[in-house]
């Protein structure tokens, strides 16, 4: 045989079967055919392994399954799912014109009727979009895609305070600074007449400047303002949102209570619905000079504590300055 055999004529050898004597003689002396055979055998081996793995029983630790989600929502690229709820999905995404990542909260239900209300809500969204405060993640967009409303908020890349609380006790001076900043952010949201998300560790993240920012404002607005309208428009009874998820913090006094609780979590005060006392603060390492004033600021309003997030922010800022002054004075 002078010329090389066709591929299918080599197939028998590739499968470990006998071919004609003429073909086998040729392959024994032909480097090209030997290489070709080797390539085919390698490819077949890979294929058989892949097929056997695809049909193998599930491993003891199941593989992480990618969730079903769109690769784009409107003009936003969706990189992954942050949370799934019965009435909305929360995605992490990006936009090719924006130099930042975003959190996209998308309603599951379509909002087809009630055009006038849709327009009113769109107009209301402007104050959400206009809000700018260094301790609040920016809301960047509100729109509808296929009649499903969605909000866009900047993605704060740093760790959530929930992860920090899990991993370590925060120095109390840092905690005073952080809660003071979050209180200032919460006050700005209230001043704009907007609902807040829960003021808990899940809704605060440290940005790249190690400064805390409230996150989830856009989602909270979608949940509290838009989704009930969709449910109403579609004749569905709105389901109460589960505890721990994004709901409105209803009263300004409640803001202070939640922030005080978060402070306690950060410095690892004993858990429970307790009033923060100066003794507890001292036990947690707070300077004696500051503990009483700090306990007073974080106390319920009825016990002389701050009456609003704005007041708490002011008091904590004063305490942080005093601590800084004392430190300079006494070392």
């Amino acid at each position: 045989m002078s010329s090389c055999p066709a591929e299918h004529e080599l197939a028998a050898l590739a499968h470990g079967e006998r071919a004609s004597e003429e073909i086998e003689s040729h392959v024994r002396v032909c480097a090209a055919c030997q290489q070709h055979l080797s390539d085919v055998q390698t490819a077949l081996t890979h294929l058989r392994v892949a097929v056997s793995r695809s049909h193998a029983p599930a491993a003891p630790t199941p593989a992480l399954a990618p969730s079903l989600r769109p690769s784009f929502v409107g003009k936003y690229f969706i990189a992954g799912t942050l949370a799934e709820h019965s009435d909305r999905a929360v995605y992490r995404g990006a936009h090719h014109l924006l130099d930042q990542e975003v959190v996209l909260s998308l309603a599951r239900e379509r909002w087809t009727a009630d055009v006038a209300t849709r327009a009113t809500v769109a107009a209301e969204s402007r104050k959400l979009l206009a809000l700018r405060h260094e301790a609040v993640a920016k809301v960047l967009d509100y729109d509808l895609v296929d009649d499903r409303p969605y909000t866009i908020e900047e993605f704060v890349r740093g760790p959530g305070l929930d992860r920090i609380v899990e991993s370590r006790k925060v120095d109390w001076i840092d905690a005073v600074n952080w809660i003071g900043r979050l209180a200032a952010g919460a006050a700005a949201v209230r001043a704009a007449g907007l609902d807040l998300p829960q003021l808990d560790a899940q809704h605060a993240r440290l940005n790249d400047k190690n400064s805390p920012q409230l996150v989830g404002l856009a989602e909270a607005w979608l949940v509290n303002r838009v989704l009930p309208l969709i449910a109403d428009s579609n004749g569905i009874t709105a389901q109460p949102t589960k505890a721990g998820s994004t709901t409105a913090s209803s009263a300004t006094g409640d803001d202070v209570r939640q922030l005080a609780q978060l402070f306690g979590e950060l410095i690892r005060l004993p858990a429970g619905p307790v009033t923060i006392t100066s003794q507890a603060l001292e036990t947690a390492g707070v300077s004696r000079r500051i503990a009483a004033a700090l306990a007073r600021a974080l106390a319920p309003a009825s016990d002389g504590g701050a009456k609003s997030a704005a007041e708490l922010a002011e008091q904590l800022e004063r305490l942080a300055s005093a601590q800084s002054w004392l430190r300079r004075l006494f070392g």
Partner: protein
Amino acid sequence: MSVTNETLLERVRNTADHAAWGEFFAIYEPLLLNYVRGRVRDRSLGWNDHDVQDVVQEIFIKLYRTLPDFHLDHGRGRFRTWLYRITVNAILDRVPGRKSADKVAADNLASDNAAAPQRRRPKVHDEGQVDLRNLAGGAGEPDLDWANGYRQAVLDAVLPQIQAEVAATNPNKWESFARHGLQNRPAAEVAAELGINANLVYQNTARVLELVRRRCLECYDEELSEA
């Protein structure tokens, strides 16, 4: 899953091609999730599935930003190698203190079966323009887990495509390939079952195999004959 003359890697360069990105996710997301979890497991990093998801999201954001400018040049490296480096860098980015202990982290994350020694890796933000010539010398070459996982992901995508295409026009052709090529059963036995001659079984197998190899290479830059 649509197959066009343009390869998937070319199509995702167009960020407006949402269908292409859907396919891209379907193929590569399971690979990335499993690989990242495998790499960090048993490395005492204390990561949970949330961390793994977070890293994979970082990778896709990077891909979305860099793929539009990505040009495949086989002379300089393969896509799977480029994607491997982006993946490893994304893992390293999340390891606390990696800047001061970069090499240690890289060694920790390298697979036990990785043959190549670790070498200086490019800055994360250089990845879009990573010089693939650096990969040609063996440094930063994917480990076996990655190579196997990548191949598996591609074949999981390609085989159903080919099966649908071939079986629609010639069911015996696919069956010949499935029973003889994939299940490794003797050609004579398969021929008897399908009522065709053994030569045709060989031909069918060879042609479908060639189709699979070409699709893997053209659409996903995966050379099936590589060890």
